[in-house]
């Protein structure tokens, strides 16, 4: 069972090579098939782990605990939204050449395949290798549109991403240097479960340095300020389904890698050192995102800066620790990924219909593109953490959890920053949704869009309904799963 599920998870990686040479017409269906197999394999691995026992397949290489299973599940969900939104993107993107559709699907398969195997690795070195590889593959997708701005964003992403994550490699190396003294020079010395077992005996100086470099490296990939500068460019220039994956899945996966280092650091040094750093950089990210959200004129950059804000809050929650804040973190990551993925697809639709990214030019979106416009408005309200959104519950839990474990001042600052950010965010969304439609009489006419496919409402609406449902009701299995992830994050689970 486990073996075949593991094989299924690597199907997207292998299928990418086939799809690259498939005719454009057939590439989509083949890719959907491969993604379905990979997703099914991932779910078959993740769900039993979330509700039952951890998997340990190839010793020292592959292992899946509740934390990894959660990240795997989240990646599958975001991938489903992104894949469902891809045909509409490919149909509307004007700059495509022959063969580009096949290449898009092949790159998407490699990107998703990389994301799916990251949480399966128990070896921190291999986690690094896989995260770097997904960075590079996704850089090809960021510049897919071939406009000068997209090429600029891709270069920035490639270079800043590689340098940033180079520091994470240095952190990994220092962790290895600290553990080979106890575990010997084997690949076991980078295995997270072994590292956790010997954490109290690790050299504190090396672990401290290792965490700092891991924070810079994976913090860059998570979009924590001040290492975030590539993020608004990459997330705004990428095709919308890719933006959904970048914001929903890649950022979470990077925070996941950082959490692994955080847990090793707690084991070796106690909670004070790494927690303080996470809280400081989290608050900084909230503070940096705020002015850019308030003064934003570009719809996709608005969403990108909002991701920096939410990841900052996530880093804070990780730093706070304690069962309440950590449960809030798990729910927050899930709800943010679902909402943001739907918002990027809907926002991409608005951009295609309005032929502009400028918020001012997209006004009247509720009238001009009813399906995407409604989804965008609904998603924005949910993302802002207004009840009954799950993000309301999660943000309250994170802040309250912070207060309850002695982080009152940062939690209070975060509450103020969040409130201001929501005001700025919703101001732009209101402008766009309820403003008078700008029917241009000169210049390029607004393209006759036609009715969107009926299932588009389902693709965009289902994640939002799920986020609303999670805000008012936590089914028993979900509560169990969250408790198990929290147990790993709190250092009490396996």
């Amino acid at each position, binding site marked *: 069972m486990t073996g075949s599920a593991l094989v299924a998870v690597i199907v997207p990686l292998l299928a990418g090579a086939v799809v690259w040479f498939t005719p454009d017409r057939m590439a989509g269906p083949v890719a959907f098939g491969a993604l379905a197999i990979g997703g099914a394999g991932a779910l078959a691995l993740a769900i039993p782990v979330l509700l039952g026992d951890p998997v340990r397949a190839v010793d020292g*290489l592959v292992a899946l605990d509740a934390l990894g299973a959660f990240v795997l599940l989240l990646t599958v969900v975001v991938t489903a939204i992104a894949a469902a939104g891809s045909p509409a993107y490919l149909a509307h993107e004007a700059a495509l050449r022959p063969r580009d559709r096949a290449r898009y699907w092949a790159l998407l398969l490699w990107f998703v395949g990389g994301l799916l195997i990251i949480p399966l690795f128990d*070896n921190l*070195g*291999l986690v*690094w*290798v*896989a995260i*770097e*590889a997904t960075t*590079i*593959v996704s*850089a*090809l997708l960021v*510049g897919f549109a*071939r*406009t*000068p*701005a997209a*090429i*600029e*964003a*891709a*270069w*920035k992403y*490639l*270079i800043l991403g*590689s*340098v940033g994550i*180079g520091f994470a*490699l*240095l952190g*990994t*190396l*220092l962790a*290895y*240097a600290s553990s*080979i*003294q106890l575990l010997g*020079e*084997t*690949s076991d*010395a*980078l295995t997270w479960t072994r590292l956790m077992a010997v954490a109290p005996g690790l*050299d504190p*100086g090396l672990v401290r*340095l290792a965490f700092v470099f891991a924070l810079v490296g994976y913090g860059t990939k998570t979009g924590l300020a001040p290492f975030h500068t590539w993020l*608004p*460019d990459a997330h*705004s*220039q990428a095709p919308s389904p890719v933006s959904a994956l970048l914001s929903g899945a890649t950022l979470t996966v990077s925070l996941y890698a950082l959490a692994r280092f955080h847990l090793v650091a707690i084991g070796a040094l106690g909670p004070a050192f790494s927690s303080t750093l996470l809280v400081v950089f989290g608050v900084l990210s909230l503070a940096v995102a705020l002015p*850019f959200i308030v*003064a*934003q*004129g*570009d719809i996709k*950059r608005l969403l990108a800066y909002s991701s920096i804000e939410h990841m900052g809050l996530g880093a804070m929650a990780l730093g706070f620790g304690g069962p309440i804040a950590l449960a809030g973190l798990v729910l927050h990551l899930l709800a943010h990924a679902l909402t943001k993925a739907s918002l990027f697809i809907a926002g991409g639709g608005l951009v295609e219909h309005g032929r502009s990214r400028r918020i001012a030019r997209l006004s009247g979106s509720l009238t001009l593109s009813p399906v995407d416009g409604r989804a965008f408005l609904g998603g924005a309200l949910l993302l802002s953490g207004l009840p009954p959104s799950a993000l309301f519950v999660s943000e309250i839990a994170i802040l309250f959890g912070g207060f309850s474990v002695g982080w009152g001042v940062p939690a209070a600052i975060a509450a103020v920053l969040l409130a201001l950010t929501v005001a700025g965010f919703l101001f732009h969304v209101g402008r766009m949704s309820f403003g008078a439609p700008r029917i241009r009489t000169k210049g390029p006419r607004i393209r006759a869009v036609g009715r969107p496919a009926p299932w588009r409402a389902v693709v965009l609406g289902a994640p939002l309904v799920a986020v609303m449902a999670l805000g008012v009701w936590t089914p028993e299995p979900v509560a169990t799963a969250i408790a198990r992830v929290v147990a790993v994050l709190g250092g009490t689970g396996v």
Partner: protein
Amino acid sequence: MLIDMCAAGIVGLSVLLAVTRSIGRSIWLVAAQSALGALAAVGVGLTLGLGHLVVAGGLAFGAKVIVSPLILRAMLRSTSVSIERHPYVGPRLSLVAAIAIVFAASVATSDLALPASLGGARALPAAIAAMLTGLFLMMSRRKVLSLLIGLLVFENGLALAAFALTYGMPLVVELGILFDVLIVVIVGWVYSRRMLRVVGSLSTDDLRSLRG
């Protein structure tokens, strides 16, 4: 002994790279730097009988001394720009900066209480210096080729750090890292071609539209 000489060579080449404006010569220099890193790995691997170091060193030679420079030369041939004409920081100031980096790296690592069991620990200052010089190159140059060269210098520093701290990472991780280096260079190649077609140059000056 071999490690010390290779580490010294790597630092020396970093400083040379900081003052070199010819991109063609920079490609040779960074290839030589990678070769020294691979030589150190193979040499120490053979002396101490560490098979994984020999394999990793050999593959690093193929990836970073043969394939990457070939791709960089191909990029160079496709453009008329062969000299980093107006870097943000001129050669003289770059020399000062590179030497300051070397000093800073040795001072910073002198406080670090490394376990004495690590034979190559003396190479750590050199590794940090190479990493920082790579970063400096990336910050001070305008051409995308120079950015990739800076990235490779940074990576050489990282590889030397891996070597100095632990005699290399586990083989499977080393292979992954080399794979990543190769695909970074290849994707950089893809984008430089795309950039030549769309923007018409390989200078980052023409990539300054995204703000705010």
